[in-house]
């Protein structure tokens, strides 16, 4: 009874955060009911509270037509810079201090605001269009009026509506599954849109509805659903459904169809909408794009503050000057002194204050208003070019690099630490069965290895594109792993104490459908093993009807047989045939656990099978019979085997069944295995190579095809799925030959080995097998293979019944179901009998060792954080050249906090002492408390430049402790590379966070799976491997690359370019504005510090925006200070970005000094040239503006390394624009622009030879020092240039003149910092 259960309710209900959903088809409850509808009794009388009527409309737009302007402006004014500029512009409206025409002063800030607003508007419009499209998707909704399903738009769906979905339709809202065409009440959904996983997830009709025989009729649905308030937890859904009769049934996430998923393999389903629109879990999970601020931008903001300070200083200086000036001239009746409007004279202090404010207006150019907009434009263009780079395009997967974060391109050029996942990132995540050991005997599969080698060659030679759907490559990521993450967080303290096995992911939840390339499918069997399998098969075919067929086999052969059975069935692989859709099984009541329990209790309930597959009457009849038997004698059969039934009806000889069932998929016919993880599929393919083929998997049975035995159908009692805490999966089956209940377990060796029968329990043989297997496992790990142990347990009927009881309780428990299920699984997976182990190879991706070498040369520290076991990880590390055979490897495996601390001290001591004496072979690093197995790998070899560190998950947990993290980091910093094995997703992100915050280093995390998401999010730059669209890692990443090897070009070429371009552009911006403001400042000395400006207000305001902006943008986007091939050839050049050589404080100040000097020149040359002449203010100011423009362009010319026609065009255009605007402006109106009246000024100037003369001399004089110093510093690097290896010089084409030059410049000529050299072709064009 429901009432009794009430006190034990979980938090979600106790806290009253529930939502009640009822059918919309019922007459709407009256008002008073809705008020009174608090008690349960009334609700059960379906007169409850007001239906929640949220509709399913999607609205992601931020604005409406009306709200756009105010809202957008409001948002923009959150940016301090905008407020500042508006303040300045408004200051202009105060007559006493105004410097420009007030309207004109508003122009730039309005322009900037308008550009941003336009961008926002455009983004919002595209959101609107996408919303509109989605809102107007159609689906079938049950209509009360028409009493049938009618087509409605998505947006018209309300909570409480009944929706009918057909196969391949996208689910419009979160729907509670009430009916499915599937006779088992199942429904498959694909959650690719949600989390990128393309494997099918099973959803189940709400208990109580699945048993309905007739079609579900929404009109009869009167139950009330009580569930959680909308939340964003994709992995959890709790609730209950309360039927009319007061009965309750629990609702779980298995009952919920989530919006955005796709119905697969199910003809039609009906459900009631629980959450709609923005309340759906998918949308609640949809956080907006991340905004990251790049390192360079942070530095730049700091320099902007310096500029503000400078501005204030200049203004203050000027204000004081003006005050003094006023004091001097005030009582002297100076003719040029203008009194106040009332005739009184201005006091010096007031005048100084006015002057200060006006100076701030006049000198506002110093704070570059267009800097932020320009940077954004440049970044967008950089992103465009990175996206367009054909060398980052992966032919195989037809994907190019995606930049998902638009504003951190330059961070790519400053990375110091790379944190990489291993599986799927360094490796292909294409699992290939390599070798196995069964019953202590190793089968090396040499032929297989040779075949693989051949594939590899073929691959590299012709770059063969695997056929059909190969784009659906590996992805890791699933609900499961999310849950793991949560759990690991919640139980942090728990596993820290070491009592729980560290989380890891040998079989990391790589749930996915894997289409396999040939090398994974074709496995050449080992002849010896094949022979043994055949022997078993033959023998069993003969002896299958005997009482104990397996008993006659030798233990070894029995193990071989079990081993292959386990390989074949201990998984969740679904078999499909390429040309047929997945068949749906059609059986009656599924022997789900709870049903089975019901059967146990009331043997009278028997469901008759309802067959749909008329083509198989015989089989159905049999299965029906079996069901009946099962139901009737379940308990009995637990006690006594009934061989006749267990033989599954296929009593005909194996060689004669084929003609009878020609429509059955033949074993030779190509079957497709859809597996959740590539390991599983690899094992199934391996078993198939040994003629042990999985041919059919239904929810309750698995069929295996053997050449002699024919088809064996195993009754599948339970599947305990894989999770990365248990790190194993098990199936409970009834063996058709022996009718025993068998448990097959497959899992990580470290786990399975601990679950085996106690040593002395089963005698010598098993012990021997065990130690042999352990040896082989180590061997496999050394080879870099992923190892899995296969074990078996035979359950007695009593044991099974006992376990089943508790398991069913766990399954039906409402509250801590997962925990109970976990405990239940542990009870089952114990006392195992070891069968053997497999070694699966996960091939390295192409170019990984080369890439790692290059990245190393570029000064990047590479850390590999993997969930894999230590040996596997080390071997992969060796394979990808992360570890070198002649370098020292420090291995840190500690069992306790104290041991870890001691080890760290020891290692630190060792590392520090190494520096002093000559490297020698040392055994310095002892593995405290690690098993004998690892001692071998712990010895340090001859030390190279610096050792490498290998640490396992548990030790990492200790090392990441507050007390030890500094030591750990210090040690890790000394190491060439760091390898963290067996690390959990959380640990990964903790490591990244630690390095990022403590070492203040730029970090990059690269990974491909859900377990890397947290790490990717924490790092400064997150990179996802995008084998496939919509993956979780990609979703969380800033950049998505198709393969690991593209990282090289992304960082070394594009990162370097982006950083150097942006750094130079930002420096140039500061230089430009300072220099321009300098001109105005020097003038103050000659106008009584009155904040007068000789440069016309128009030029002042539009100079930055119009005349001088384009060339620097072009340079910022296109300039290449070093060509790509040189960057790739000499990755050391990357270090300039890491050391921030191009944009460091010294560079900034040097630029400022240079700007001051240049402005002095550009001011005083015209000053002296026009001294004591009849020149007027603007006829004198305009040449200064022109000189400034020429100086800027010339300066940019020195800064620009590569001049394309675009640079030329931009420069010419700038000059042309300036003169055109000046001419038009100066001719347009004689009286319009007070206070400046520049009428005909430019025209007059163009007739003045002095104008040309000063325009020629001033820019050249201004740039002479910079030029000379650039040359001298450039010159000084020549000596080093000579030391370049000859072969690299030889790499240049002989036809090209080869020049050497400094790689960076902004650091300034006076710099004594590390110089980087670069070679470059000295000729026009022809860069490749």
């Amino acid at each position, binding site marked *: 009874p429901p009432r009794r259960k009430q006190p034990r309710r979980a938090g979600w209900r106790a806290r009253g955060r529930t939502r009640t959903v009822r059918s919309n088809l019922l007459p709407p409850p009256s008002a008073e009911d809705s008020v009174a509808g608090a008690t349960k009794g009334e609700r059960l009388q379906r007169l409850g509270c007001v239906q929640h009527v949220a509709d399913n409309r999607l609205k992601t737009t931020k604005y409406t037509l009306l709200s756009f302007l105010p809202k957008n402006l409001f948002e923009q004014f959150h940016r301090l810079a905008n407020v500042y500029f508006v303040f300045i512009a408004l200051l202009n409206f105060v007559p006493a201090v105004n410097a420009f025409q007030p309207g004109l002063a508003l122009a730039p800030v309005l322009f900037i605001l308008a550009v941003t607003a336009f961008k926002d508007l455009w983004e919002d419009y595209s959101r609107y269009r996408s919303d509109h499209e989605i809102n107007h998707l159609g689906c079938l909704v049950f209509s009360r009026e028409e009493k049938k399903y009618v087509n409605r738009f998505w947006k018209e769906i309300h909570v409480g509506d009944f929706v009918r979905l057909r196969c391949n339709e996208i689910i419009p809202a979160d729907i509670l599954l009430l009916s499915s065409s599937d006779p088992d009440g199942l429904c498959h959904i694909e959650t690719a849109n949600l989390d990128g996983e393309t494997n099918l997830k099973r959803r189940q009709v709400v208990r109580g509805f699945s048993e309905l025989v007739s079609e579900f009729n929404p009109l009869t649905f009167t139950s009330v659903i009580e569930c959680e308030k909308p939340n964003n937890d994709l992995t959890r859904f709790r609730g209950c459904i309360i039927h009319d009769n007061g009965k309750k049934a629990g609702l779980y996430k298995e009952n919920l169809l989530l919006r955005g998923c796709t119905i697969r393999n199910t003809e039609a389903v009906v459900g009631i909408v629980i959450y709609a629109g923005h309340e759906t879990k998918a949308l609640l999970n949809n956080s907006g794009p991340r905004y990251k601020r790049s390192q360079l931008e942070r530095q730049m903001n700091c320099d902007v503050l310096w500029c503000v300070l400078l501005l204030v200083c200049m203004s203050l200086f000027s204000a004081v000057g003006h005050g003094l000036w006023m004091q001097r001239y005030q009582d002297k009746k100076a003719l040029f002194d203008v009194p106040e409007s009332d005739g009184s004279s201005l006091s010096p202090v007031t005048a100084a204050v006015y002057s200060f404010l006006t100076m701030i207006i006049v000198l506002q150019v110093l704070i570059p208003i267009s800097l932020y907009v320009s940077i954004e434009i440049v970044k967008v263009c950089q992103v465009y070019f990175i996206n367009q780079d054909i060398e980052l395009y992966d032919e195989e997967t037809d994907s190019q690099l995606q930049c998902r974060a638009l504003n951190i391109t330059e961070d790519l050029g400053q990375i110091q630490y790379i944190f990489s996942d291993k599986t799927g990132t360094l490796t292909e995540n294409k699992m290939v069965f390599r070798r196995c050991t069964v019953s202590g005997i190793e089968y090396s599969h040499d032929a297989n290895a040779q075949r693989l080698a051949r594939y590899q060659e073929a691959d590299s030679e012709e770059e063969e594109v695997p056929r059909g759907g190969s784009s659906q490559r590996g992805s890791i990521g699933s609900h499961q792993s999310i849950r793991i993450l949560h759990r690991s967080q919640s139980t942090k303290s728990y596993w820290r104490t070491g009592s729980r096995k560290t989380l890891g992911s040998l079989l990391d939840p790589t749930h996915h459908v894997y289409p396999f390339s040939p090398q994974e499918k074709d496995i050449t069997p080992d002849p010896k093993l094949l022979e043994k399998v055949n022997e078993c098969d033959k023998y069993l075919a003969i002896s299958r009807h005997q009482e104990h067929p397996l008993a006659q086999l030798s233990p070894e052969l029995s193990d071989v047989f079990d081993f292959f059975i386990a390989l074949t069935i201990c998984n969740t692989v679904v078999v499909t045939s390429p040309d047929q859709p997945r068949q749906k099984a059609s059986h009656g009541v599924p022997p789900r656990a709870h049903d089975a329990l019901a059967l146990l209790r009331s043997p009278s309930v028997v469901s008759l099978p309802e067959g749909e597959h008329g083509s198989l009457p015989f089989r159905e009849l049999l299965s029906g019979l079996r069901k009946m038997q099962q139901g009737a004698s379940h308990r009995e059969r637990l006690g006594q085997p009934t061989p006749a039934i267990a033989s599954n009806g296929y009593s005909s000889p194996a060689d004669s069944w084929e003609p009878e069932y020609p429509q059955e998929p033949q074993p030779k016919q190509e079957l497709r295995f859809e597996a959740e993880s590539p390991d599983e599929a690899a094992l199934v393919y391996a078993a198939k190579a040994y003629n042990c083929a999985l041919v059919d998997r239904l929810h309750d049975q698995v069929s295996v095809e053997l050449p002699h035995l024919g088809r064996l159908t195993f009754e599948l009692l339970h599947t305990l799925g894989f999770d990365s805490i248990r790190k194993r999966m098990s199936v409970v089956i009834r063996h058709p030959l022996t009718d025993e209940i068998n448990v097959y377990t497959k899992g990580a060796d470290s786990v399975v080995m601990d679950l085996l029968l106690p040593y002395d329990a089963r005698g010598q043989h098993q012990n021997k097998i065990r130690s042999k297997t352990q040896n082989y496992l180590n061997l496999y790990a050394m080879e870099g293979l992923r190892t899995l142990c296969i074990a078996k347990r035979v359950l007695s009927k009593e044991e099974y019944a006992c376990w089943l009881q508790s398991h069913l309780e766990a399954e039906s428990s409402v509250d801590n179901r997962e925990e109970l299920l976990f405990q239940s699984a542990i009870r089952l997976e114990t006392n195992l009998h070891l069968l053997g182990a497999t070694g699966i190879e996960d091939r390295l991706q192409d170019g990984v060792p080369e890439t790692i070498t290059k990245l190393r040369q570029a000064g990047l520290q590479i850390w590999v954080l993997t969930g894999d076991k230590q040996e596997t990880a080390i071997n992969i590390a060796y394979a990808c050249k992360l570890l070198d055979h002649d370098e020292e490897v420090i291995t840190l495996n500690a069992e306790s906090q104290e041991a870890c601390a001691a080890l760290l001290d020891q290692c630190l001591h060792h590392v520090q002492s190494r520096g002093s004496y000559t490297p020698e072979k040392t055994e310095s690093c002892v593995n405290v408390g690690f098993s004998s197995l690892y001692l071998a790998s712990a010895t340090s070899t001859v030390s190279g430049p610096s050792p490498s560190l290998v640490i396992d998950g548990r030790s990492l947990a200790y090392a990441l402790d507050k007390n030890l993290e500094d030591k750990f980091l210090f040690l890790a910093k000394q190491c060439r590379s760091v390898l963290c094995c067996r690390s959990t997703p959380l640990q990964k992100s903790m490591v990244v966070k630690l390095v990022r915050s403590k070492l203040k280093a730029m970090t990059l995390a690269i990974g491909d799976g859900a377990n890397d998401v947290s790490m990717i999010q924490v790092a400064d730059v997150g990179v996802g491997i995008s084998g496939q669209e919509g993956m979780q890692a990609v979703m969380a990443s800033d950049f998505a690359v198709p393969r690991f090897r593209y990282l090289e070009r992304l960082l070394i070429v594009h990162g370097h370019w982006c950083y150097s371009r942006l750094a130079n552009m930002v420096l140039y911006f500061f230089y430009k504005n300072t220099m321009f403001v300098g001109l105005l400042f020097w003038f103050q000395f000659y106008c009584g510090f009155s904040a007068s400006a000789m440069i016309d207000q128009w030029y002042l305001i539009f100079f930055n925006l119009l005349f001088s902006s384009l060339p620097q943008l072009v340079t910022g986007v296109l300039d290449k200070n070093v060509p790509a091939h040189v960057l790739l050839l000499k990755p050391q050049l990357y270090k300039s970005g890491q050391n921030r050589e191009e944009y460091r404080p010294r560079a900034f100040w040097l630029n400022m000094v240079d700007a001051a000097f240049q402005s002095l020149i550009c001011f005083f040359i015209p000053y002296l040239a026009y001294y004591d002449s009849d020149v007027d203010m603007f006829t004198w100011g305009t040449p200064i503006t022109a000189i400034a423009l020429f100086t800027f362009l010339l300066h940019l010319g020195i800064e620009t390394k590569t001049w394309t026609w675009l640079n030329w065009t931009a420069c010419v255009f700038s000059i042309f624009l300036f003169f055109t605007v000046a001419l038009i402006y100066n001719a347009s109106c004689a009286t319009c622009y007070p206070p400046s009246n520049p009428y005909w000024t430019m025209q007059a100037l163009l007739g003045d030879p002095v104008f040309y003369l000063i325009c020629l001399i001033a820019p050249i*004089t201004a740039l002479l020092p910079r030029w000379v110093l650039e040359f001298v510093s450039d010159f000084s690097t020549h000596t080093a240039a000579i030391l370049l290896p000859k072969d690299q010089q030889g790499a240049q084409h002989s036809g090209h003149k080869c020049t050497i030059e400094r790689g960076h410049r902004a650091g300034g000529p006076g710099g004594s910092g590390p110089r980087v050299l670069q070679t470059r072709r000295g000729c026009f064009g022809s860069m490749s």
Partner: protein
Amino acid sequence: MAMNYNAKDEVDGGPPGAPGGTTKTRRPDNTAFKQQRLPAWQPFLTAGTVLPTFFIIGLIFIPIGIGIFVTSNNIREIEIDYTGIEPSSPCNKCLSPVSTPCICTINFTLEKSFEGNVFMYYGLSNFYQNHRRYVKSRDDSQLNGDRSALLNPSKECEPYRRNEDKPIAPCGAIANSMFNDTLELFLVANESDPTLTLIPLKRKGIAWWTDKNVKFRNPPGTESLKERFKDTTNPVNWLKPVYELDPEDEDNNGFINEDFIVWMRTAALPTFRKLYRLIERKNDLHPTLPAGRYYLNITYNYPVHSFDGRKRMILSTVSWMGGKNPFLGIAYITIGSISFLLGVVLLVINHKYRNSNNTADITI
């Protein structure tokens, strides 16, 4: 958003990679622009490109400098400070304000005759015509002859906007402070003969053509100027109304008086000169101003002493590049020489460097 897009993809085109789908790939175009392979000139700073540039700059600048210097030196210019600070100066008496116009005469000698057109300037020092509030204190509309602005001048003219309820024309501080000394030049025929010849000074042609004809206009109307300015009053410092600025030429009165126009073009720097009169060349045979003694007759009105200002009278001939200015020539010669010297020094260093290494071919 990503979920939305995915959903859309799914609806539009089905799952990607479906067999028989379009062959459209995401392969980027292999164009020079998109691949950042545009042909580029790389003018990097090496000896090969920089050294010639230094020499070229030197070689171009030095001759230009010499040319300018010579031209500038050929310009005849004489400057007479008549502020009267020195007690010996004849104008010293005018420093203390006297109610009647103070007239003083300064004599000077031209060592060499001035050929061609001679420009007569007045020069002021320490006069901040570029002061911000001063520069703003004018009404361009009024000066352009706008009737409404004439009677209701811009607020910018405060406090020189109205005087005794009448609008000031021209309003503002600039107009109010207009230079109002009168300069006359007499040539002493010779030492023995004290007859003075008045040098004819042209009052017109000293302002910019566009100022005189476009920017400055008298209020429209056919009646006399006095009639057109009837509702206005003259600036407080002015002795004469605006329509009587030139007693000789009716067309040079009002806002289009060229002295006024010249004054209204505010000087850029506190030391400036303004064109006062033209002395036109009479014929080729006689120099415009022959060498000899001259008298400068000054009607001393303009008070500059109070703010430490100076007044000068300048006579100057012009060249193609305007007035006398030795600076530009010197600057060109200096920069040219520096550049050339740098070129030589760098060449020497480069040469030495190259000799010390055998891999000279790398760097040209």
